[in-house]
């Protein structure tokens, strides 16, 4: 287990050197995106329209902030924490194709994402769940918001982060997933303890 301090845009070789269990602190731009943003990006790509942000080398955070509007129209962050990532599993290859290098969320993802991590070169980072006030300390400002018509949680928020974390590498580019490993061991244990 090693500790890394990385900045966006993330380099493919840096991301490929990460292994499950490593801890990452992230600085630079983090984009939030959840169910509706993924769905809308998928629609745009099908039409051949580019997405509203450049995701090359980016970190995408499965999250929706509590943001407050300032009198000058800009936004300030109140709190932010991870949402359950598995809902975005259908977009595993799509996000890889956008060139992002890290997905931040909670609860882990499944086989399609693990395959895409290796193929496209991105990692899945687990944030501490339910720690929105603490995680907000790693965000310096809200740079921009896109697609606010979808509502505060579902919009794409462009966050400026500084030492955002700790984030644990839950799935790496080498085909290893903490979640899959734990699940396999746990199922074996149930079969032994309460046989069918």
């Amino acid at each position, binding site marked *: 287990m090693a500790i890394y301090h990385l900045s966006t845009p993330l380099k493919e070789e840096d991301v490929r050197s990460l292994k499950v269990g490593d801890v990452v602190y992230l600085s630079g731009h983090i984009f939030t995106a959840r169910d509706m943003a993924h769905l809308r990006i998928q629609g745009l790509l099908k039409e051949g329209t580019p997405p509203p942000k450049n995701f090359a080398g980016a970190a995408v955070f499965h999250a929706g902030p509590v943001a407050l509007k300032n009198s000058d129209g800009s936004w300030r962050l109140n709190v*932010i924490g991870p949402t359950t990532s598995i809902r975005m599993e259908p977009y595993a290859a799509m996000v890889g194709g956008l060139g992002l290098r890290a997905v931040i969320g909670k609860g882990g993802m499944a086989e399609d994402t693990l395959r895409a991590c290796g193929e496209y070169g991105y990692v899945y980072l687990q944030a501490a769940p339910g*720690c929105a006030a603490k995680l907000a300390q790693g965000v310096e400002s809200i740079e921009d918001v896109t697609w606010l018509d979808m509502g505060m949680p579902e919009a794409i928020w462009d966050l400026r982060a500084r030492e955002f974390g700790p984030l644990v590498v839950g799935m790496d580019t080498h085909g290893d997933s903490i979640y899959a490993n*734990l699940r396999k061991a746990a199922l074996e244990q149930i079969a032994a303890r309460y046989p069918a």
Partner: protein
Amino acid sequence: MLQYEELIYTEVYQAVLRAVTEISADVKGLLDEALARESNETAKSMLSSMVDNLSIAKQADKAVCQSPGYPTAWVWFGKDGPHPCIKQAVADAVAEATQRGYLRPSIVDPLTRVNSGDNTGKGVPNIELEYVPNQEYVDFIISFKGCGAELGNAMQIMTTAKLGKDLVGLKRFILETAVGAGGKPCPPYGIGIGIGGQMDVAAKLSRKAISTRRWDDVNPDPQLAELEHELKDAVNALGLGAAGTGGDTVCLAVKMECAHTHTAIAPVCINFHCWVARRAGVRIYPDGRTERLL
């Protein structure tokens, strides 16, 4: 009467604010204990973040979690009935807390997915009214239960054969559900289990068990107390850990509630509750005295 109505509005709003800026003391105690005995380094780091998060939120008067979850309130009333203003008082409190930045607007139409903007809407907040014969006071508990946790939930209409000898089938169903849920319900979680009735009865019991009981209580039914204890230990022994990234404690509590059912069926609902146990309540006496619940 107007004075009593004002009291209800004030007490309900205070309960909502307390619920979203801290977690109930029983769960905080269990979280501290889990951190103290944790042997896995990653899980220790995750549990430390959780404990830190609570003090940061408290000091800065912020929401403990960015997701408001879904609000359900329970009202237990006696011969005088619930006050007619109670539904409006809860809806107003939730909308005001949203407007003040304590709750992110997150309630949407189930089909169009359009956000209502203030965390209220058709059927939201959900209110469960329960009549308790001869009770002099009114008890009120509001619970904001996170919805990532809902993605791990499961229900099954079990049968005598499926429950199995010594309830082995039931236990396996619960453990396999925990494995399937993995880190989705924001562990270390609580599990509410409702058994009996038909599907609707079991589902309501499962939510009520984990949202309104103290997580450190002992079930007055000895058979259920033993099952709760055995299942909590068995779920923790799976090694899934805080955040679902491995460790000693994935489950802080199992709470079970039963109702009689038909001889052909045994409906079982398994309901996860994230560690962020945002619930608070108040007991209101007819003379206006109040006592804090949870």
